[in-house]
């Protein structure tokens, strides 16, 4: 009995590390709430979820890529290109499902190319997707030009980003659905296990009879499609499609959320649920500083410091 008990407690200690981020999140929430009571109003809290939805969707979908030991730097331009694709589909008078599919297809396609090159040619993902960042941005600019494309009088499309359902923005439902789906996939499907296995020891996973290349390709497709979905939501929220959306730095925000959630950039174990924690952590920090009207310089310094402190706590507990 005592052995089992000991082991169970050991397990709890092991799981404390990820909780440190949650604790840190709770602490900063309290700090913000005390310094600005408006922070805790339901309106602002809903606002936070709405604000992080786009990065959040991309981050949950990026988690698998990072777990396999890869990375996808091309999500920013994919977001722009999928918005444009949807816009053009709208212009062509397509029905809404086709419009959305058009956007998603663009992202999945870019992901497919990324995945095929990474998996079959075994080139370093960071360079492949950096190259793809450049290629997709160029393509978006050629397709869309530098001008904004206004999306007018498309109530159905606009509903995706700006509509509300039962008092909550519709984009939140999409975010929640994607997050739940990805958590399910990670925890309850072979794919979820396989992704971690590949990141941990690709060779061993291959020798265990798994389709490594296929899986790797698939995770990039998921990531691309996630970025595309984010692009559709964004274009719907801002009523425009623009080739320069998802500017440089977007990919770093997304990766930051994943890594903050405890997934190692070198691959291996990771968790979509903890990625969400990372997403909210960054979202709350941003929101809190905005609401306190912290000047940008202090904002950046504080953000860096908060991330360091939160992670240092997590590392200490582990």
């Amino acid at each position, binding site marked *: 009995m005592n052995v089992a008990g*000991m082991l169970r407690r*050991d397990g709890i200690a092991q799981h404390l590390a990820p909780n440190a981020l949650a604790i840190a999140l709770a602490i900063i929430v309290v700090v913000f709430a005390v310094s600005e009571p408006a922070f805790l109003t339901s309106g602002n809290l809903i606002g936070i979820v709405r604000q992080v939805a786009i990065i959040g969707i991309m981050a949950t979908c990026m988690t698998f890529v990072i777990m396999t030991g890869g990375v996808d730097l091309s999500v920013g331009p994919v977001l722009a290109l999928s918005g444009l694709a949807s816009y053009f589909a709208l212009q062509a008078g397509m029905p809404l499902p086709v419009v959305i599919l058009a956007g998603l297809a663009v992202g999945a396609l870019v992901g497919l190319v990324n995945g095929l090159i990474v998996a079959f040619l075994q080139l370093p993902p960071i360079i492949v997707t950096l190259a793809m960042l450049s290629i997709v941005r160029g393509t978006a600019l050629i397709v869309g030009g530098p001008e904004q494309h206004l999306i007018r009088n498309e109530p159905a499309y606009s509903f995706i980003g700006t509509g509300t359902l039962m008092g909550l923005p519709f984009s939140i439902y999409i975010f929640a659905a994607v997050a739940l789906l990805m958590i399910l996939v990670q925890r309850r499907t072979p794919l979820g*296990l396989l992704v*971690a296995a590949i990141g941990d*020891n690709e060779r*061993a996973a*291959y020798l265990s*009879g798994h389709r490594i290349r296929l899986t790797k390709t698939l995770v990039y497709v998921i990531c691309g499609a996630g970025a595309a979905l984010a692009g559709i939501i964004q274009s719907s929220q801002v009523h425009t499609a623009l080739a320069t959306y998802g500017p440089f730095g977007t990919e770093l925000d997304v990766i930051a959320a994943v890594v903050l959630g405890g997934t190692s950039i070198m691959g291996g174990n990771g968790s979509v649920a903890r990625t969400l924690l990372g997403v909210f952590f960054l979202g709350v920090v941003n929101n809190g500083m905005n609401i306190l009207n912290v000047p940008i310089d202090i904002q950046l310094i504080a953000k860096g410091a908060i991330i360091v402190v939160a992670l240092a706590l997590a590392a200490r507990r582990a």
Partner: protein
Amino acid sequence: MNADAPVLRGVGLGKTYGNLAALADADFTVRPGEVRALIGSNGAGKSTLIKILTGAVLPTRGTVEIEGQAAPLGDPLGMIRRGVACIYQHSNLAPAMSVLDNIYLGRQPTRALGIVDTGRQRREALDLLARHDIDIDLDRPVGSLPTVKQKEVEILKALALDARVILMDEPTGWLAAADVARLHATVRALKARGVGIVYISHVLDEIFAVCDTVTIMRDGRIVAESDVAAIDRPTVVRLMVGDKLAGEASGAALQQRHPRGTGVVRMSARDLGKRGVFGGVSFDLHAGEIFCLTGLIGSKRTELVRTLFGSDRFDTGTLEIDGRPADIRSPQSGMAHGIGFVPEDRHREGLMLDMNVTENLAMATLDRHRRGPLLSRGSMARAGRQAIDELSVRPPDGGKLVRLLSGGNQQKVLVGKWLGRNPRILILDEPTVGVDVGAKAEIYAILRRARGEGAAILVVSSDLEEVMTVADRIGVMVSGRLVATHDAGAVTQEQIVREIGGGTA
């Protein structure tokens, strides 16, 4: 016992991980010129003890002394400076760096401004190679060497230190008999020079061959110390694993042999060859038999069996499974033909070190735990528990990360992963490296059970004792050729040794 003052001494050492006491209250001494065996079953805490002595691990309790002087804890450099060298159980090499740089890792001789004196480094290394009769290309990146060669680099690394104490944690894992003999010669030479040696091995023959004294550990405690001359094998085994398992272990060799098993040919290889590696290999593997391939290190057994499984390709010859030509191009198709493959290097090719035991055990059988598109964690956990029980993985915790298991327990997980598939053809490459006697007996028993159920089993092993124990038939490989096959009952160990050495000159 030796009357000299101990050169290295640990007092009251303890180490707990979470709530697991990996080591408790261990007093341990090594004297100059003493070869002390440290034995115990997997997870007994041997490596933990060694690592505390080298400073690799910070003990929770206790002190370490060198020649009566308190030594710093958890400081590898400090211990190296005090003359403590170690051959660790698992590879501790920088794979991309050359053999030469690895041997002198962190200690390259330098000239002014920290510039490495490469000439001197190479001279010293060549001298070292000559002295210990080891042949290795100093400029190859270590990562491109076979596992056994890497082990030799580890050994060289420790020898290069000119230490006062050398701690050897399973130095002979993967080594073939001839290399083991060479290492033993080295050990004796070091001993003659007054170097204190700690020698960990699961092969009791080795203990009786080179060690003066023995320390036996069990469940994190030192349970006995003795002169080797004053103790016998059964006693050692009993002290290590307890009475019940000891009976099983000694019974292992007494099983019946089934050459050619049921007589049905499962796998038939004709004239297999891979350019420049092996060639002309023909054999039949029958259902219900254990066929052991033995040979010197580098005789290409590993390379051969990899092509059988599909992780490599052979380029000439034919392979038939169940009488039909089999075109095996990948592990998947190998598995589709009912083949299972336990690779040689558990860390490089076998395990996901940062995943837990249950997940590792399920890695080759994910399709069985599938419920529609979903994965049943429950079914995985059940299968995991069963395997843990069968193989007596210690601690019996499916949630433990494999990295945190002792070496032998890691190996059990690796074997368990493939046994779980109940493959019709099971290929195991050095399946019991680092596995203790008790668990070895269990693995053998499991192999026999699988054999009894009609599986065809191919074991690659350099451990002749193992070969003689477990094999129904024995194949001998020399330089990429299968030079002889025997029914195990009809051949002596001496003859096999002759054949193994025969091809090389």
